[in-house]
């Protein structure tokens, strides 16, 4: 392995990890808080990127473009939520339907499959041309996102969303409109994903209709890696979100190392799938082992 090349590539993985960390925090909200496997993400990441790039190409302020991307992502989450709670379509299928439909929407937004935006001509918020700056900017946005979410999930509304994900029966018995809560949760989650898409498009200098393919797996990888590695030390909600972002950074570092070992970029999807499968399998197999051997695995529930 070429250590020098690896060291050179690492800052880029950190920047990517921070940008995808925003997406992963969105995935955390659906997957962990709402207990909802939302596959909208693969489509809404590109929607965010597409809206941001088209807005900036049309001369809008890049920060306004971020707002536009977030709102577009939220709209995607709204659609998935309505599919699920209003029309009774199963959770996973609702996300898949939105994701599929968004492909056409994203093509409409961009007019073609790829829209480039050059950092030379446009005032981008970050770009891979200046990685230290990209790391700085994306860190700030991660911190802002975590602070806002920490506040939000401490409010009456936010706590009701958490209760809905935790125990729907109890939530309804306590007068919580669980349908609305699911929709709001999906909107917040996909809003973050749209925002991540806006940053990612700027980072790589284009929005591409395929940029979100497999995004959910990367998001899940970050959530799961963050949970497995930092779950014991990071108990507080905000710190858990920090753990998720660390998880995303670690994921990209691992990918960089794997690439340096000589694998092709086209092998990445397989590696991502295997990483997620492995991290999901470990806690399960551990549990099985403890049941079989009568060890104190279940102690926490005693």
């Amino acid at each position, binding site marked *: 392995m070429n250590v020098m090349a690896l060291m050179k590539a690492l800052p880029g993985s950190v920047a990517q990890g921070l940008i995808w960390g925003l997406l992963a925090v969105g995935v955390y909200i659906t997957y962990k808080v709402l207990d909802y496997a939302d596959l909208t993400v693969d489509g809404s990441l590109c929607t965010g990127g597409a809206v941001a790039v088209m807005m900036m190409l049309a001369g809008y302020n890049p920060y306004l473009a971020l707002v536009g991307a977030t709102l577009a992502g939220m709209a995607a989450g709204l659609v998935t939520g309505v599919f699920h709670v209003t029309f009774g379509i199963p959770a996973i299928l609702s996300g898949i339907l939105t994701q599929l439909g968004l492909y056409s929407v994203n093509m409409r937004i961009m007019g073609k499959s790829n829209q480039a935006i050059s950092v030379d001509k446009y005032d981008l918020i970050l770009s891979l041309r200046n990685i230290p700056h990209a790391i700085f900017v994306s860190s700030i946005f991660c911190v802002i996102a975590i602070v806002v979410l920490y506040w939000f999930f401490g409010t009456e509304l936010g706590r009701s969303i958490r209760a809905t994900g935790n125990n729907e029966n109890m939530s*309804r018995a306590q*007068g919580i409109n669980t349908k609305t809560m699911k929709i709001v949760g999906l909107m917040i989650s996909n809003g973050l994903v749209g925002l991540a898409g806006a940053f990612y498009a700027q980072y790589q200098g284009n929005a591409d209709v395929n940029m979100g393919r497999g995004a959910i797996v990367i998001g899940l990888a970050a959530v799961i890696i963050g949970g497995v590695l930092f779950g014991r030390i990071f108990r507080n909600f905000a710190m858990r979100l920090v753990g998720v972002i660390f998880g995303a950074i670690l994921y990209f570092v691992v990918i960089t190392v794997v690439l340096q070992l000589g694998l092709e970029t086209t092998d990445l999807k397989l590696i991502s799938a295997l990483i997620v499968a492995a991290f999901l399998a470990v806690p399960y197999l551990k549990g099985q082992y403890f049941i079989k051997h009568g060890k104190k695995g279940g102690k926490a529930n005693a």
Partner: protein
Amino acid sequence: MLELKEIYKTFNPNSPSEKKALNGVNLTLESGDFVTIIGGNGAGKSTMLNAIAGVWPIDSGHVMIDGIDVTKLPEHKRALYLGRVFQDPMNGTAADMEIEENLALAYRRGQPRGLRWGITAKERGEYKELLKTLDLGLETRLRAKVGLLSGGQRQALTLLMATLKKPKLLLLDEHTAALDPKTAAKVLQLSDRMIAEHGLTALMVTHNMKDAIAHGNRLIMMSNGRIILDIKGEEKKKLTVEDLLQKFSVASGSEFVNDRALLG
């Protein structure tokens, strides 16, 4: 306080697993009534409570709570009037949330939930005092996750949550069935105390005839989705298990043999 008029509910209609769960239920409760409900498996006891709570829409009939027709209201809107405790201790609380968070959720039952902070310092003080009355040592564990509590502790907490905002009607659905006898007795005693303290109107489903006789001022027995016995006043006070079995056999005829084991 509560009025059920001709309530019918059939599960899986027009299919091999069709089940007529409620078959014309009529019931009127006065304010302050504490009614115990007994009956064999599948008699419709829990189904009746779920019909009141609005877990699913009923096929026909009306549910009135304190003069308000709630038949068409969804479950979360009826929650304004109801306090509920379930059979499964896991069901009534959010396990991954703290004790104080669970109480704060219950404290806001029937209120719009906005962007105010979800719990105030003043509430915390109140919760501490209320938890002290449970005598389970929970007042020092406000920030503990509810998932760490025992089944009995969780049921006691659920009871507290159900009565935190004084409900018009308290629905107890075999809420001691999953507990060991000693804990069950303690939770029952607590239920009695809370109902008396707040002057609540309550419906309590139980499998235990002795409990059904010892608690409340009125006893109803269900079979095949109907109320077949309704005993109140002096008659209820003097009731014995033998009386009840006798009455049951008269009211329901041949089913007696099958249900006796369950009821006795």
